[in-house]
Every structure is written in C-alpha cells, then in structure tokens.
C-alpha cells in the first residue's frame, strides 16, 4: 500500500475577493522530505501554507494533512511564522514561550507539567537556545528569536515543520546556521520551508517547488535557468555554482529579478559562488 502523503494538495485554487492567488496546484509531500517552496512575492507561498494549516479554505480542490483535514492535522504541524505574531515587549521568558508550544498536546487545565518542561528544555537544547531560557523574549536578536520559534514548534512533537521565510530578517551567517539546523531536523521530520532565495536553499533541500500562481515541481538538480525565468516572468541573473554536495552545474544563485527589490548578492565567504 502506498504510504499516506504528509501533505497533499489536489487541484487546489484559491482567490482573495475574486483575485486568483493559486490555480490548479497539485502537490504531494512525502515523509521526511525537505521541500523548499520558492517563488516571487505575491506568488502565493504564504497562502499555500495557510491552506495547509487550515487557516484558509480553498475555493476549489482539496487539501489533506496526514490523511485528514487540515484542521485535524494542524496539531501535528509545527509552524514557524515569518514574523513573530506577538509583541516583543510581552512579559514572558524564552522558557515559557517555548513551553506554550505544548498547547494541544498537554492537559488543557492548570500549569505546565514536568513533561512539558522537560520537552521544552530538550527543544531549546536542540535549537541551541538553552542558555537563553530565562531571558525575556524582547531581548533576543533576530536569529535567536527564529531559533526560539523553531523550538516552540518542535516542542509540540510535530510530524511536519512548516516555516514561512524563517530567515527573511537575519544576516546570512545566521541564515546558514538555521538551515543547517533544519537539515538536521529533516532527518526525522518532514520540513517545508518557504523562501525567495532558490540558489541558497537548493543546497539544503531535497526538492524545490516553484510557485507563481501555478506550481512547477523539481528536484534540486533539475532547476534550470529557463524554469526560473518562466517562474519570475523575466530573465534573471545567473550565478554559476559549483556545489560540493551535488556536483557542479549551472544553478541559479541569484534568482530575483531587479524589480524584486534590492538584490541579495552571495557573500564572498560562500565557497563555489563564481561570476558567470
């Protein structure tokens, strides 16, 4: 028997007030896959995550999570938002913030149990924020905050981790550390990460899905300049990569066209980035 896909979208379309955001999207994510979801701004990446979380309902098609409805599967998903959806001056420590990830997996009444505390400690150790446990969340740097959010997602013992541009606001050295952490986690979890930086994530993920209203799926090795150009609707600057991990070949390193805002150049300390 075929194993049940962790996430399955069948011919899914979605429109905000009649404006199409997603159209006819078919996607299956299998167990322990590490999927990178890329595409231009407004291409529907965050909308797709919200459909998977059941925060939005598709206008057409079907979304299933772990074989059931998104609302039912939601508690088995660890979600890391692009921006923390809380105020940074809230009086709460890192430890308690992480422990709140236990909601839905622990008793509904009273305080946290010893097991909740132990799992929170374990998640903070894994994300390397154990030393920050007593700190108020308002004192964290962007990278530390992102790790705390990953810890909060992990503490619910999820089967899937969904991350919406987890490194949009942090420097690139920390970005690599976070993706190393995700790579490590993907050995035991299904990980779906949204990014606008194809070239960067292609060294970590097992598969890239390109989304711009419709979906094109690729294994990392298949990603070519033509598909990237088709995705963004205009030629993009290419940087030749010589990846140590999956051989050499032409990979898009900088995939954002000029109109997408300030270009994010690969830093000189990344080996393998050569001018065309």
């Amino acid at each position, binding site marked *: 028997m075929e194993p049940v896909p962790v996430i399955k979208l069948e011919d899914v379309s979605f429109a905000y007030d009649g404006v199409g955001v997603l159209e006819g999207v078919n996607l299956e994510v299998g167990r322990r896959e590490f999927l990178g979801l890329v595409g231009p701004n407004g291409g529907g990446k965050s909308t797709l995550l919200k459909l998977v979380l059941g925060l939005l309902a598709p206008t057409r098609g079907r979304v299933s999570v772990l074989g059931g409805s998104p609302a039912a599967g939601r*508690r088995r998903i660890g*979600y890391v938002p692009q921006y923390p*959806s809380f105020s940074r001056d809230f009086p*709460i420590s890192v430890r308690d913030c992480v422990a*709140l990830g236990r*909601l839905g997996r622990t008793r509904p*009444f*009273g305080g946290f149990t010893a097991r909740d505390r132990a799992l929170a400690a374990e998640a903070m150790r894994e994300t390397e924020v154990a030393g920050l446990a007593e700190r108020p969340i308002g004192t964290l740097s962007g990278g530390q905050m992102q790790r705390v959010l990953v810890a909060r997602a992990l503490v619910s013992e999820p089967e899937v981790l969904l991350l919406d541009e987890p490194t949009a606001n942090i420097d690139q050295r920390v970005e690599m550390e976070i993706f190393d952490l995700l790579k490590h986690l993907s050995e035991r979890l299904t990980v779906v990460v949204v990014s606008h930086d194809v070239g960067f994530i292609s060294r970590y993920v097992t598969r890239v899905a390109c989304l711009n209203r419709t979906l094109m799926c690729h294994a990392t090795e298949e990603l070519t300049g033509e598909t990237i150009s088709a995705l963004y609707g205009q030629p993009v600057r290419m940087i030749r990569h010589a990846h140590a991990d999956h051989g050499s070949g032409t990979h898009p390193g900088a995939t954002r066209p000029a109109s997408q805002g300030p270009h994010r150049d690969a830093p000189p300390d990344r080996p393998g980035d050569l001018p065309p």
Partner: protein
Amino acid sequence: MNEFLQALSQHAFLQHALAAGLLASVGCGVVGTYVVVKRIAFLAGGIAHAVLGGMGVAYYLGADPLWGALAAALVTAFLVGWVSLRWRQHEDTLVGALWAVGMAVGVLFLSRAPGYGPDLMSYLFGNILMVTREDLYLMAAIDGGILLVVGVLYKPFLAVCFDDEHALLRGVRVELVYLLLLALVAVTVVLLIRVVGLILVIALLTLPAAIAAQYVGSIGRMMLLATALGATFTSGGLALSYGADLPSGSVIIVLAGLAYLASTLGREAVRRRVLR
C-alpha cells in the same frame, strides 16, 4: 497616620473600607495584568461605563444595584467581545457607542426611579466608606472566582494574550477564551465599583499592572506585584483621604497616577544614565 490607625481600631466602617480596598486589589492585580498585556484598556473602560445602565435598571426595579451591575457587566462584556471579534475595523466606534449609551440608559432609569434618587455620585466615583459586610462577602466571592478561573485556565489565557494566532493553531478555542477574559474584566469592574466607582475603575485596572510590568518579566510576578501595589494605593488613599477629609476614591486614583508617573520617569532617567 496615627489618627487614621486609631480611628480604624474604633470604627467598623473604616475596617470594612480597608478590607474592601485589599479585596479589590486582588482582582485589579490579577485581571489588570491581562488588561495591560492584551491591551484592552479601552474595552475594559467601555464595559465599566456601560455598567451604569444595569445599575439604573436594577434600581428602578427595586433590586440591589450591585446585582444589576453584575448582569450588565457580563452582557456588555459579551457585546464588546462580539464587536471586537466580528467588527474589528469598527471596534473603537462601537465600543465608544456602548460606553455612552450604557451610561445614558442608566441615568434615564435613575431619573424615573421611585422615591429619593440614589446617590449617582457614589456609583460614578465610589464610596468605600459605605461598604457593608455583605458587600465584603460578595467581593471575597468574586476574588475567589477570579483566582479559580485564572488558575484553571492559566495556559489558554497566557496563550491568547501572548500570541492568539499560535494559540489557534495549537487548538485553543481563542474566541471563547477571549470572551471569558472579558467576562473576568466585567466581574472585576463590579468588584471595584464600591471602592472607586465605575468612572475610576479603569485606572485601578491598568495603573498597578502597568507599573508592575516595568519591573518584572512574567505574568505571574506581574499579578503579585500589581496586587501589592493596588493594596498600597487603596490603603494609602483611604488613610490620606480620612486625614484630609477628601473623597477616598479620587485620592486612591491620584495616588496610583502619581506612582505610575514617578515610576515611568524614574525608569527613563535610569535608562538614559545607562545609555550615556
């Protein structure tokens, strides 16, 4: 001060007043903490003022105005919550309308009430010296109820105040918890009416907790400190007003306001010295 302590040992009405202040500070410390961190002071103000409508109706019908206040507070909390959840974009207008219409209804019923009109001023600004033994029992019961609900629902309340999107994804019934929180605010308003009156309630619901937030980093410690501060303001205000023959509710509020100002300016001065 000695004069006050001597009078306290002789007069039951002063002992009742002191006990009322202490009982009120528990409610304002615990629920005020939620009002401050969830930033619903305006909603709490709307609930407090609209309560006059219920008191007026109860008085007109010959019932105890405090029970009328309790019923009106709960109804208003539900209306305010419903407005806040369903008509988010018009929240300020609608809560402002409930605020004023509630008061107007109260004044209309009081003006048509048979016999001598009640002392409207004591509803609006409190009269802690008129607290009876029965009032104290009711206040103690309200405190007990608040502590029980907060103890049992500690995690959902924390989750909804801190990050309601995350709480929703973890399966918390966010809207229900939010309405319950507003119901707590409503009963706390009733708890405080005798002490400072419904116009000044909002200050005791926010100032002690806001001062506490400047010094501690968790909800629990904020509640404890805010309760201690509330007890200091009500007892201190009572003593000062007795010595100077001034309205006690107003002295309590001015004391709380001055303490907040001093604390905020003091913190700012320390922060500047550190930065320099």
